[in-house]
């Protein structure tokens, strides 16, 4: 698996940059007739989401529904921000994702480096156990983790959402694969200059790991921001809701207020869409490397 993943990663990065429209090539390709309608189909749900979020409430449940709203109406957004705790949920999601990312970057790169490059007793067993846990479905862990967290008093607080995201087997594995690919001469040079393990790690190795760290950060952002099952189980107190959990709850309680639901959808999804557009190439590399979104 290791090889196909790392092959896919490099190839994915290449795929992201390779097919650029060649300058001066004006011949109409037949593939436009395939790609244009398909792209439109993929875009339609999002277009509907944005249109619906700025539509007057009555037009969303009118029959037949108008294709384009007769006027722009921010009622949905106003209702969202005045009648719900969405700001707090967003803040909670930001806290959960930020701590997940920071903790992942620090702990997984340390562990990945240790398992890749340092020699110590128990290393082989350690990395074997960690890779083996990737095969355990998270659903198997839900019940005992819930019981454990409720004993620790974490349930119903933000801590419950944060703790499982502090580090992951996948993150350790990813960083280890990256560090294994670096030439050992780098560390030798650092050692000759009199650096110890920490100094070499911080000053020599980590600056080289930026692409791998970016991949890990995106992976962690996507999976922690969009997580629904675990918050659903562990958090019943709406002050500690994440934005996804808040949205999912709207679904049952506010089903008639489509303009509000769609405004919530926009607010919860837009940060990641903007981020995607900004870091598209890195996203594609991350996608190739990870099988997230089960």
């Amino acid at each position, binding site marked *: 698996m290791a090889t196909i993943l790392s092959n*896919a990663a490099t*190839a994915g990065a290449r795929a992201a940059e390779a097919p650029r429209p060649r300058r001066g090539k004006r011949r109409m390709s037949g593939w436009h007739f395939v790609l244009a309608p398909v792209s439109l189909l993929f875009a339609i749900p999002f277009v509907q989401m944005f249109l619906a979020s700025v539509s007057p409430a009555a037009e969303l449940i009118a029959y037949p529904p108008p294709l384009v709203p007769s006027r722009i109406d921010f009622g949905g957004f106003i209702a969202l921000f005045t009648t719900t705790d969405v700001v707090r949920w967003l803040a909670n999601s930001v806290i959960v994702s930020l701590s997940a990312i920071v903790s992942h970057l620090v702990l997984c790169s340390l562990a990945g480096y240790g398992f890749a490059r340092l020699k110590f007793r128990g290393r082989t067993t350690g990395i074997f*156990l960690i890779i083996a846990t990737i095969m355990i479905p998270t659903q198997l862990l839900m019940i005992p983790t819930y019981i454990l967290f409720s004993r620790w008093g974490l349930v119903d607080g933000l801590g419950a959402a944060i703790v499982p995201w502090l580090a992951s087997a996948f993150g350790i594995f990813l960083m280890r694969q990256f560090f294994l690919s670096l030439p050992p001469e780098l560390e030798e040079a650092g050692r000759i200059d009199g650096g110890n393990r920490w100094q070499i790690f911080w000053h020599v190795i980590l600056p080289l790991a930026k692409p791998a760290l970016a991949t890990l950060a995106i992976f962690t952002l996507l999976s922690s921001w969009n997580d629904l099952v675990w918050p659903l189980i562990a958090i019943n107190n709406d002050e500690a809701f994440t934005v996804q959990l808040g949205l999912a709850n709207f*679904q049952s309680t506010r089903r008639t207020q489509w303009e509000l639901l769609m405004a919530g959808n926009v607010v919860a999804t837009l940060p990641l869409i903007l981020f995607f*557009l900004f870091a598209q190439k890195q996203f594609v590399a991350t996608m190739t490397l990870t*099988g997230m979104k089960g």
Partner: protein
Amino acid sequence: MSTMTVRGRGGRADRPAASGRRRSRVARWREDLGGWLFVAPAAVIVLGLSIFPAGWAFLLSLQEWDGFSEPEFVGGDNYAELITDADFFSAVQHTGLYTAMFVPMSLFAGLFLAVALNRRIRFIGLYRTAIFVPFVASAAATGILSTYLFSPQFGLVNNVLRTIGLPAQGWLEDESQAMFVIALMSLWGQAAFTTVLYLAALQDVPGELLEAARLDGANRWQTFWRVVWPQLAPVTVFTAIWQTIGSIQLFDLVYTTTRGGPLDATKTIVYYLWEQAFRRLEFGYGSAVAYALFGLTLLITIGVVVYSRRRGTEAF
């Protein structure tokens, strides 16, 4: 992965070897400690939140427990009950139906989109963005969108059907169509993933092979099916396993669209597990369901790996 015997020998040993046995023992101990300082924080979290709960889940699966009263040891009773549980089997069937729809669709869509996107034409960046952006949408957002688009009364999909003169459908409110809608919207959200894997694999197909096929007079179809497609076999096997494992764990999108309905038609294994454990507080029985899911995952993985090894297409 190098073995432990490498330590202390060879060119990369960071201490002189001939510095006395006691000092080297101390040095070795320090080296062990140094290594563990690097890996321990992450390792403790990952192993503590997986190996330990996984073992505990097995113990729970042998008990009857609601979380409050004394747990009662019942041995294999939960598993015995599971085998005869009609609700569990219909959940397995619903999950199987989804998997049977989603996995082939996502492989086909990924291959098709990758081939289409793998060219140097105008607007290719725009096309790629349109197809890739849904990947960042969460299950909650996708669920709400699905419910709106496929609403029998005011949804866009039925409106299009009416416009072209086809009868409106019940979609998520129709028990024979709900799972199809869920599979379709999963595909919307995840097509980017299989596309990117196939795109990467396509770019790895050696150019000489294509050149050779062209010289032998093969047309585009022949080149694709005889030359390119066999080269994609490992990625196809890998993606198929990955998507199958993901599919049998379907929960989020069901929760945010139908909550298992209508008439339990979209109740999947994980939905059933969640309901048993966190609605009915049957922690023991829920754990048995979880282990059944784990077993199913392992069987599928092993089965596909063995099959593909025999056929000589190794993905792992």
